[in-house]
């Protein structure tokens, strides 16, 4: 006999005050200012003089329970038993006594974790699931990120970029990873291959048709069975038809490539939020270390670090120097694929006599 099912307790999102560091609870909404004593460490001072030091730590993001317990042990022995996670999966320890900062950092580093990610650093790459768990990934986001962070670790630790750099990866064009100053995304380049024998059994055809962003899918009879067909000229290879219809196989060892986009900036500071723009594509999907993608990211970072003024994010730097010089500086080709070609694309075309030489 199955055990008796009980109704779920629908509590939704938990109250954070029960898990919040007491000094943060006490000074909720009462902070006066912050300082950045060293990379990886923030000092927040409350109006009543209370102080809290935050130590930000990069991890492997996909945590096993051993690693999670190690992080907890450090928090109990050297911290004060409370942590906070950032949107980019860094873990933060809070302490109210300056004398605890150095021993805490030492314990973190001795355990193999990385202190950094604050202010003008290249902070942890926010990423999606990839081969470890998603159903339409063209690559393994966690592997790309691990390989890349190995090479960007000094930038994570040092905080000496012109402004903060947010990198994201996504394992398909749908781009769950979000906008980034630099975004490394997978680009499928061939339409899905359809296994017609399976479609009728597995796929709800109207909902697959509705899923396609460019109306490239039509219901069709193939070999006397109801199936689907794809207008390959229209298809932009996004893969959105795969989740509702796995017989529309989009994953492909040969034709899955990486593409790099730059200039996504979600802050309102100095300018309105911006979307990322394509700079490089056709980059081989080359596990286990993806060296080609990392090399381009490093080139972009180097040019940005040398060329940008203080406080300029990557999008602001490019706006100032112009795209022609950007492509020159990072030694990447400009192709017809860089020119937007949908209905609203004229907005992105140059309708002035502003020319860069």
């Amino acid at each position, binding site marked *: 006999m199955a055990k008796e099912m009980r109704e779920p307790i629908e509590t939704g999102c938990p109250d954070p005050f029960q898990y919040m560091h007491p000094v943060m609870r006490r000074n909720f909404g009462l*902070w006066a200012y912050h300082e950045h004593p060293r990379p990886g460490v923030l000092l927040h001072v409350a109006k009543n003089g209370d102080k809290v030091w935050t130590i930000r730590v990069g991890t492997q993001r996909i945590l096993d*329970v051993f690693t999670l317990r190690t992080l907890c042990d450090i928090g109990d022995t050297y911290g004060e038993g409370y942590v906070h996670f950032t949107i980019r999966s860094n873990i933060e320890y809070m302490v109210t006594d300056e004398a605890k900062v150095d021993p805490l950092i030492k314990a973190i580093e001795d355990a193999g974790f990385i202190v950094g990610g604050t202010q003008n650093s290249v902070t942890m790459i926010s990423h999606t*699931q990839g081969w470890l768990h998603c159903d339409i990934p063209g*690559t393994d986001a966690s592997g790309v990120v691990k390989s890349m962070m190995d090479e960007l670790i000094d930038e994570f630790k040092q905080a000496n970029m012109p402004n903060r750099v947010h990198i994201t990866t996504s394992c398909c064009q749908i781009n769950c990873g979000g906008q980034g100053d630099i975004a490394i995304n997978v680009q499928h380049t061939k339409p899905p291959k359809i296994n017609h024998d399976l479609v009728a059994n597995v796929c709800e055809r109207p909902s697959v048709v509705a899923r396609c962003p460019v109306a490239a899918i039509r219901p069709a009879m193939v070999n006397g069975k109801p199936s689907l067909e794809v207008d390959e000229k229209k298809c932009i290879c996004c893969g959105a038809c795969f*989740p509702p219809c796995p017989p529309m196989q989009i994953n492909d060892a040969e034709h899955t490539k990486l593409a790099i986009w730059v200039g996504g900036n979600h802050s309102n*500071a*100095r300018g309105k939020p911006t979307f990322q723009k394509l700079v490089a594509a056709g980059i081989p999907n080359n596990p286990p270390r993806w060296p080609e993608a990392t090399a381009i990211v490093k080139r972009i970072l180097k040019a940005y670090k040398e060329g940008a003024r203080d406080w300029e994010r990557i999008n602001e730097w490019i706006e100032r120097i112009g795209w022609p010089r950007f492509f020159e500086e990072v030694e990447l080709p400009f192709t017809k694929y860089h020119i937007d070609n949908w209905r609203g694309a004229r907005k992105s075309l140059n309708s002035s006599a502003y020319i860069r030489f």
Partner: protein
Amino acid sequence: MAIDQYPTPMLDQLEEGPWPSFISGIKRLRDQHPEQRINEVTNSLLGQLEHSYETRKGYWKGGTVSVYGYGGGIIPRFSEVGKAFPESKEFHTLRVQPPAGNHYSTGMLRQLADSWEKWGSGLVTFHGQTGNIMFIGTNTANTQHFFDEINDYGWDLGGAGPCVRTAMSCVGAARCEMSCTNEQKAHRLLVNNFTDDVHRPALPYKFKFKVSGCPNDCQNAIERADFAVIGTWRDDMKVNQDEWKAYVGRKGRQHTIDNIISRCPTNALSLKDDDSLEVNNKDCVRCMHCLNVVPKALHPGDDRGVTILIGGKRTLKIGDLMGTVVVPFKKLDTEEDWESLVELAEEIIDFWAENALEHERCGEMIERIGLVNFLEGVGVEVDPNMVNHPRECSYIRMDGWDDEAVKWFDRQAEAS
């Protein structure tokens, strides 16, 4: 007990280098965990992952799994190569809602780890990009056991599928001097009002709430949330002239002009001859730049509230959309203010649920029907803050102009 390990020559290379390796973590579960079930599941997972690395393809497909009473919240995963790697052929992820602002005690993290190693693979992520704690890897039967156990001590599933999704909020008032609102309250009030819509997917598509306490928008709400709440203020920015002058003294006038004064997007700042700062608050658009540079001297004003932007989303289906300002400024002081925030969200979700096509995000619907129809549908008046500029295209009928003009002047008179 020793198990037959799948060789992982490619994954092994991800253990090199100084950044912590997720592969080493998975191997620890395979090699050192006392429970054989976990050794086997992670061994199988590594086998499949190595196979993906060799063949450059993914091998998971979806399906349907949920816990008793709910319709969503779990990402079901079945392996397409389960014959070769049988121990992880079912490897579902539970999306669990984190506390607003992502605060944890180590005690609670340990309790979650204990439950997860009892029922799952031992792999977990804080947090996925949608905001959930992601407990990665369990089979169908254990999904229910794990949920029951953590649900008993206060945790609930988030959303997956066409539903209200798990929300996100910045650290904000808990530790940030720029915070202009109570982020955790906005977060919890909004999402917990829609618990039923989180757990029983019945909307046209996903709907996300995200809350950032100021226009720095650390949660990336404008770009990624259907309903973005951004803290702001409408009176004068607070300037501590002594701290300001100390900064100018330390950094110099040229640095101050190059990095602060001339970077203001609306030229609202001026450095006076005595090194004091003059702010033209009428011109300031609250971009946050100058406050970010000198957080000791410059702070948000006292008359605080939020801006609400609707319809942000990522790529599928018509490309990326930013949220659009629908409420330029809203006070969130009294209980009535907070209730009306929730009412607005209800109004918007109801209108969208009735008018959207299947699989159409709120922002896409607005694009299809036009902002004005949307505003009329949810009962919000037009405001010049909603646009970058008025219309450019002259193809429009304007028979109703006079009535609309009267409405505007009536509203202006009422407000003053």
